[in-house]
């Protein structure tokens, strides 16, 4: 076997390893449904804080799921909701419902890079990432906040439109949970998500705290997952445009 062929095979094995790691992370986090109450602390560049809360409900899993995020606090945005229909073969469909105008508005693909309702999450960050929508490359191993991690590069496939040209993922070896995701636009690091406070919830290791940093704005949002439950009975009909309009 020539040296070039050996290198190609090694690269191929590395690529397969990276995909297998992400697939295993996805498999271990699989649940038929999920519900939590999120508390979001938004901290701007000057250190000023604002508090928001939402209720998150998801039916289905990884690439074929439906989710609704509905704000409960502050009072002035209570009822504002986002419906996300994820698809395995393409980017999700999203609609935002604003009770004040009694209208839902489709979030166009080109608008997904904007911030979601004053938080540091973009609309795209709220989608579920299916393993098959990306190509992976194992970059090595690193320790993040004391946890040994695999460091993996992911690039969206052509079928998936994304604001990010690539992302770097750190996955904990111990339990296959994400420790950090860094999102790049070309060579510029634009958003960093740190995943902390990992707990075993109904057999699924889950980070209960996500800190999303917007490095362009120098602001960050800390999302705490409270009252988290998996495999809660939910109905398909609760994840439609009609359902989006039900409250207020």
């Amino acid at each position, binding site marked *: 076997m020539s040296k070039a062929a050996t290198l190609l095979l090694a690269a191929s094995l590395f690529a397969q390893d990276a995909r297998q790691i992400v697939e295993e992370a996805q498999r271990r986090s699989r649940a038929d449904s999920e519900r939590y109450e999120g508390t979001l602390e*938004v901290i*701007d560049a000057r250190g*000023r804080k*604002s*508090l928001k809360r939402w*209720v998150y409900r998801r039916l289905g899993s990884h690439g074929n799921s439906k989710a609704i995020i509905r704000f*409960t*606090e*502050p*009072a*002035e945005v*209570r*009822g504002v909701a986002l419906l996300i229909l994820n698809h395995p073969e*393409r980017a999700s*469909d999203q609609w935002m419902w604003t009770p004040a*105008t*009694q*209208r839902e508005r*489709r979030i*166009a*693909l*080109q*608008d997904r890079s*904007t*911030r979601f309702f*004053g938080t540091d999450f973009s609309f795209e960050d709220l989608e579920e990432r299916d393993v098959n929508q990306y190509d992976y490359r194992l970059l090595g191993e690193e320790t993040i906040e004391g946890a040994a991690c695999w460091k993996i590069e992911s690039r969206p496939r052509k079928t998936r439109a994304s604001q990010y040209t690539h992302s770097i993922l750190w996955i904990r070896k111990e339990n296959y949970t994400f420790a950090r995701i860094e999102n790049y636009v070309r060579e510029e690091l634009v958003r960093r998500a740190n995943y902390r406070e990992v707990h075993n919830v109904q057999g699924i290791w889950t980070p209960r705290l996500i800190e999303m940093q917007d490095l362009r704005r120098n*602001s960050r949002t800390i999302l705490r997952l409270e009252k988290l439950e998996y495999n809660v009975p939910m*109905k*398909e*009909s609760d994840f*439609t*445009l*009609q359902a989006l309009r*039900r*409250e*207020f």
Partner: protein
Amino acid sequence: MRAALALVFGLSLAAQDFSQRGFLELRTAVFPQTAPNDRGRAVASALLRYEATYRISSGWRVAGGLDARTDTHHQTERRWGLSWQDRERQRPAFAVRRASVAWERPGVTLELGKQFIRWGKADILNPTDRFAPRDFLAVVDNEFLAVTAARVSVGAHGDTVEMVWAPRLTPSRVPLLNQRWAALPQWSQVREEAPRWPGGGQFGARWNHVGSGWEASLTFYEGYNHLPSFEVRPVSAEFPVRIEARRFYPKLRMWGADAAVPLGPVTLKGETAWFGAPARQTDEYVLYVVQAERQAGEWVFVGGYAGEAVTRWRAVPGFAPDRGLTEAFLGRASYTIDANRSVAAEGAVRRNGDGLWLKLEYSQALGQHWRATAAFTLIRGAPTDFLGQYRRNSHATLTLRYSF
């Protein structure tokens, strides 16, 4: 409130089944100029609104809302009593904003009662939005009113058919004759007679298709226009000319369509409707809106053009802000400064330059409950233009809202 509801209905209100919200809003509007029929320069108002929804069981849900308001300019009635109809000339002091019960099954929703029904996809002007009367007491600062109706929605695989039947018309509330937004000619003195209310109901149907990255709808409406026309009768020819006017709500048949298509850099939205007059009392015409929309960073831009083509002219006087905003370039831009502050601008410029409406707004949250909003509205134009007739009504507003 939750405890009170539990006492009244004997229910145990689970947190995830019950949600409520409301606000107390204090608002002051200052007008630099007086109007011939209104010497007042300032209007202060207060509004207390409470809304709640409760899921009784997996298939049933109730929703309700109440408004209590007052003001310094007699735009609000000075009498007790709870209004359901929204047919009062002034705003009622106490009103049921919404009261409906919904029955839900997979793919089917039936809602009965006073509810909000919004159709169309465009912003600023929606020709197909026929079940959406508004309070136009201050024409450019208007608010939607709910309608009493039965609505059934059936949806599957991206297609939804919605059918609405309203047993009686909820009209838009029009400007008061003794106040500046009536903009009456100085040579006239108008006395309003009791309106002629239509006796029949209204029916509407809408089919909406959600495709992969695009949406489109077809709409039909048969009923009455919620915007009034006027029977006008001169009583004397002496100056000022005395006129008796009576509001009536002409029969209306509408066929409409709307679509939203993302096209790379912008989302293109279009909405059009043909309005027929089955009773041959009023004009027949087509309204259309074409607009582009884009979010970029903290900016949101919406810009477009609204047009009108009259297919049959009958020249009956009426109050028609929808037609008044046509033959115009429309736009809105907003910028989110940070989590608490935002600025916005919206406006319309008539194609012939005869009318201009421009609103600039700054809004700031103060803690978790309070929000202050300062706005300035500039109105200019010719007296014969829909916007231009309000050229003396440029104003500044300061609004303080406590949300709970």
